[in-house]
């Protein structure tokens, strides 16, 4: 647990491992902040009546990291009191109910981190090169497209 005061942290992890909400929460904890806001994206069990058994995620890793850091820069410009930012995105197979993404943002007061976490997930869906394929019960699958993406 990194809790000492210090420079603002911009943390990014793309991993095939299961995500931990506590790990993200701990990584943005700091003594000068009274608020941590977290968003967790999880795998749903159905899409338009079809039963989803799992998702598979793929990323263009160097560009995904670069796009995430652009989002962090935007967040720090819009909410200057934001202290630490952490995004963990899972790759590969993600079973139903497990987290595909965990975003954690800390700030002295809650309004900033609450707004910033919403901006972060909205923008991530629009600009970060990650793709998910829904795998259905009947051995079918479909690459999804975020409505936030400008070129769907």
């Amino acid at each position, binding site marked *: 647990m990194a809790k000492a005061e210090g420079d603002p942290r911009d943390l990014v992890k793309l991993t095939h491992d299961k995500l931990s909400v506590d790990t993200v929460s701990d990584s943005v904890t700091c003594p000068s902040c009274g608020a941590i806001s977290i968003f967790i994206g999880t795998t749903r069990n159905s899409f338009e009546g079809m039963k989803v058994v799992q998702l598979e995620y793929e990323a*263009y890793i*160097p560009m995904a990291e670069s796009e995430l850091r652009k989002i962090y820069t935007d967040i720090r410009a819009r909410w200057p009191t934001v202290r630490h930012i952490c995004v963990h995105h899972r790759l590969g197979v993600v079973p139903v109910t497990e987290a595909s993404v965990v975003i954690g943002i800390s700030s002295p007061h809650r309004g900033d981190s609450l707004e910033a976490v919403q901006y972060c997930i909205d923008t991530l869906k629009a600009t*970060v090169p990650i*793709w998910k394929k829904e795998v259905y019960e009947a051995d079918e699958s479909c690459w999804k497209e*975020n409505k*936030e993406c400008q070129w769907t």
Partner: protein
Amino acid sequence: MVPMCMSVLYFAKSAELTGHKSETIRDPSELMTLELAIYHLTHYESVALGDQRISLRDGNEVAVIPPLSGG
């Protein structure tokens, strides 16, 4: 004139459609027929196809980026 070489990376649906994750091609103009966004990797700049010409040099890498669905 030496033919220009470049590598192309495919992701997600574009990899399924082409049948591979990357390839080396000699005439980049054929890229222009893909109805997908292209990122010019040198600076991770995005270029929507049809919008503008992009200047590519020998050895450049481009990636075909289908509509995103992360999160």
